[in-house]
């Protein structure tokens, strides 16, 4: 039984947002999504080798939200996220080698091997922090927005959260405070309908998450989360509002993760969700759907895609090789940075 149907417009949904966008921009979005997909697949393929001793939460199927959102952000805009970090990290411009070193528990990982997959960070590009406690990053991002507001900085803070994160009290508290102070923040909710293996319907009464958010007195929109341009457009609107001093916004993007909550492979066959449900969403795979749209629009062809695949594959192979050759931390590293000077 399919519980959660795809309700977007599929390939027909791009046209209205694409008008006037330069081809290079559209191709860049495609490249970024494809790159994330291939990186995730390679992590997944090698996971059983046990060189990456870290819990992974793959974003395969959810690439459009990170990429579309980050395309609307500048380098000084900050992004905070949950345990599911790979997409936001890469879309924001996080360094691939530093990420893979972190996954391989190497000294030169982006968090010096103290964070692992759930705590990717690249402050140079504004990937400012993550939390593996559901809801943990939400008030911290709100505090970052308070700091930006107090210092009158021209920046917006975005925090990614899952559907289950709306059930944490701290999320309501944070929306309330952000609205109260009109903080420059965007709450970007990826609703993939499941918290680990628990469906939304066993966790919340029948209602729409964006309507719940709207009750906190902020604009809250529902978008098709497989549509990278919809994610871009919604973020752009929210960012403009925040930068104009009009306060926070909430975006609910309906997405689907094609893999298990954590680890490699899908676990639908365990019975918590119907394989037919996943297959239905796979038919609107965000990467392939947009690719098909670009091909239809004459912006991409098979040769160009091949070249792109090749280039990405090379980058990934290089980065993995680099990670595997990188040094392990030493005992002295353990004692560093418990306290700041």
């Amino acid at each position, binding site marked *: 039984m399919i519980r959660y149907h795809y309700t977007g417009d599929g390939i027909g949904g791009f046209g209205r947002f694409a008008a006037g966008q330069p081809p290079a921009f559209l191709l860049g979005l495609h490249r970024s999504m494809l790159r994330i997909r291939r990186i995730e697949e390679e992590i997944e393929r090698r996971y059983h080798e046990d060189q990456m001793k870290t819990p992974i939460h793959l974003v395969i199927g959810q690439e459009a939200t990170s990429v579309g959102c980050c395309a609307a952000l500048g380098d000084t805009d900050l992004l905070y996220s949950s345990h599911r970090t790979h997409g936001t990290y890469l879309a924001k411009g996080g360094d691939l080698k530093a990420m893979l070193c972190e996954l391989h528990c190497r000294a030169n990982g982006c968090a010096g091997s103290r964070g692992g997959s759930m705590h990717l960070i690249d402050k140079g590009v504004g990937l400012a*922090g993550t939390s593996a406690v559901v809801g943990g990053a939400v*008030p*911290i991002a*709100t505090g970052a927005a*308070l*700091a930006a507001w107090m210092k009158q900085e021209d920046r917006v803070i975005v925090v990614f959260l899952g559907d289950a994160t709306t059930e944490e009290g701290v999320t309501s508290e944070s929306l309330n*405070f952000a609205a109260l102070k009109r903080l420059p923040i965007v709450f970007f909710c990826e609703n993939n309908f499941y918290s680990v293996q628990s469906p939304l319907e066993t966790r919340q009464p029948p209602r729409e998450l964006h309507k719940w958010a709207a009750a906190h007195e902020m604009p809250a929109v529902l978008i098709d989360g497989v549509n990278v341009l919809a994610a871009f457009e919604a973020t752009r609107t929210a960012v403009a509002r925040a930068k104009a001093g009009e306060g926070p916004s909430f975006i609910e993007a309906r997405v689907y993760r094609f893999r298990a909550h954590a680890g490699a492979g899908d676990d639908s066959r365990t019975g918590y969700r119907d394989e037919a449900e996943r297959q239905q969403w796979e038919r609107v795979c965000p990467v392939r759907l947009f690719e098909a749209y670009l091909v239809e629009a004459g912006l991409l062809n098979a040769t160009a895609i091949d070249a792109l695949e090749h280039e990405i594959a090379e980058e990934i192979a290089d980065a993995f090789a680099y990670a595997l050759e990188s040094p392990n931390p030493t005992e002295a590293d353990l004692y*560093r940075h418990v306290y700041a000077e």
Partner: protein
Amino acid sequence: MPWDEGLVASLVYDRPDPSEGRILSYVQAINEALVLALEHDPSVFVMGQGVDDPSAMFGTTRGLQQRFGPARVFDTPLSEESMMGVAAGAAMNGMRPVYMHNRPDFVLLAANQLITHASKVHFMDNGQTTVPMVVWAAIGRGWGSGAQHSQSIQGILLGVPGLKIVMPSTPHDAKGLLLSAILDNNPVCVFEHRWLMRKDGIVPEGFYRVPLGRGICRRTGRDVTIVGASHAIELGMQAALLLAAEGIEAEVIDLRTIKPLDEGIILESLKKTGRIVAVDTAWMKGGVCAEIGCLAAEKGYADLKAPVARVGLPDIPAPAGYTLEQIYYPDAARIASAARALVRWDAAPAGPG
């Protein structure tokens, strides 16, 4: 108006000698520290439930909003967890928040953000981010405060790496330690005690810092060491007077900061006296008293002439009613009696008590 105002007002403390310097009340000292910090650094701000109301957080925040504006001194929603995260997030982005609570009990709602986020971020991202924030709260005692408005939670937090915990006992230290805490680049909990708030003391003008992590000897003595912080030191000093009348000279060590713990000052005193009474405003189990006892056993074993004694709260929640409170809370006499038993230990090997 805080409900225990009448009780706190009735407490009697010795007036300090005005020839020694300027006299300020405990509350004024805290207020002055906040004013100085807000003046000194534009990234400092003060938040908390009611910091702008007529009670002004026991008076400690009086006048701050008028002086520094509602952007830098503001009331918060009743959202302890989120507000702790907001403070952490602001601290991670260049601000120095001082988040004030009436009682430590309410900090527990924010344990996730305090313990699992603020205290861990610097380590987790390999030193890339600092979290300079102060969490301030005043421990209650008496007048029905009971199990949910008088908890001393420092013992619960003692084992959290990345966190510092400060517990002043004098107006001088309340000001100097708070300034150090605000300027520190780590999350620092400052636990004040309601009963100290009517105490006056000599408080130097202007900006000064009392260093974190270093204790001070309040009274020297050769027979027994009484060590702890906050209001327990107030009682410890009173106990030392009782003991002196009997010819027992107690040394009183005020830790000022219980995390990081000044092990050196404890061990040095123990070397001299050979006897140690660990005192605290909290439960004896698993807290400051236990840690001091463990330190003595681990690193001061050769100096011990008697077992370690602890005087803190029994393993029981605080009762609300007057009679039970009197039984529950330790006083100077109880500290003195524990110290006396240690001094007489050689004569009575059966044990203290």
